[in-house]
């Protein structure tokens, strides 16, 4: 670990705020070298990741992509299996090569992504985390699409959907079932499969309203209600009306709760409110 890690980060932060990006890069390069020399690959990867981001701000996409590639190698050398980070690095490196007009390189990096997602899927399956495995497999499909591999995309997409449906059938929590149904519906929708999509959106609403029967209004997050409303248009007319009424009632209860909390903000209330 670099001795003055905290100081370095603070100094880099200030340099970036002052938009002195090349100065920040040179400081980060020193820190990265020191870490690498002392065998701290995790620390080196962290600094190199920051360097890559600086190159993006400088619009030097080739250097950014190369820095990301090296970051990827360093993380692997450190023995880390953080799929999320590795996948982000691969995706960003590929995008950087695309911005730099190096399509072949971009595709090559995407192949790394495919391997990673497959590895992640197998890892999740071994741990019986079917939803995560399904998500990883869907990412494999999406990457095949980016690579214009239509046949592989079709085949993988179908497998991923089946895995999602398996997860939905095995799930007991109504709440999780609801959001899983919405995910499946969205995947069908994206592929233009309207009937299946309609069916799973309907299922999602059904599970959701069953699930919230058991909880207090305060426990429902506003963001979640907003997400539900965003799906409302996907339903057939009859169901849309039914669930709209239920949602309006929930919103009205939420507003009543908000009004109870507004003691310190009473003077800020507009003259007429919802």
């Amino acid at each position, binding site marked *: 670990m670099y001795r003055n890690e905290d100081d370095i980060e603070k100094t880099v932060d200030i340099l970036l*705020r002052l938009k002195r990006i090349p100065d920040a890069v040179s400081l980060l390069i020193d820190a990265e070298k020191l870490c690498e020399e002392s065998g701290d690959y995790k620390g080196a990867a962290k600094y190199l990741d920051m360097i890559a981001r600086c190159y993006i701000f400088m619009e030097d996409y080739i250097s950014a992509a190369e820095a990301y590639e090296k970051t990827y190698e360093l993380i692997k050398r450190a023995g880390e299996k953080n799929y999320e980070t590795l996948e982000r690095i691969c995706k960003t490196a590929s995008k950087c090569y695309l911005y730099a007009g190096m399509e072949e390189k971009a595709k090559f990096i995407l192949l790394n992504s495919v391997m990673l997602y497959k590895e992640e899927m197998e890892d999740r399956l071994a741990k019986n985390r079917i939803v995560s495995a399904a998500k990883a497999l869907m990412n494999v499909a999406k990457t095949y699409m980016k690579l214009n591999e239509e046949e592989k995309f079709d085949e993988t997409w179908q497998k991923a959907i089946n895995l999602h449906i398996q997860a939905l059938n095995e799930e007991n929590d109504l709440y999780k079932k609801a959001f899983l149904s919405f995910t499946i519906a969205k995947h069908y929708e994206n592929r233009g499969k309207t009937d299946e999509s309609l069916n799973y959106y309907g299922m999602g609403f059904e599970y959701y309203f069953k699930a919230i029967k058991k909880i207090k209004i305060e426990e429902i997050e506003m963001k979640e*209600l907003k997400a539900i409303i965003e799906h409302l248009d996907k339903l057939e007319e009859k169901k849309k009306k039914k669930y709209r009424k239920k949602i309006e009632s929930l919103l009205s209860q939420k507003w009543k709760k908000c009004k109870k909390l*507004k003691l310190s903000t009473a003077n800020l209330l507009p003259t007429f409110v919802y």
Partner: protein
Amino acid sequence: MQKTKIIDSKLASDICILADCLELLGKQKDARNLYIFGARIYERLIFDYDVSHLCDDANLMAIDALLAQHIIRATISYLSSKYYTGELLGKLGKLLSLSQKISLFT
């Protein structure tokens, strides 16, 4: 004081999302009022900070992420209300001049 701020911040966030929900349901008038209400709470949270030093470039770094978030959310809520009265435009002007002080890397 700190507790009130946290409650106000959550309240403002909930009210702005409630406004988004009403907007999505086509209830524009109700949504507008809630956007303004939410923005006013954010605005008060902003001016509870000592923002006078933000006019001084030497203290540019003093702006913290939470304050930046409040400034951005208040501005977005006022804009979402689509209620461009002179008073509101004045408030927006003040918020925008503060937002110019927010560093890209906050």
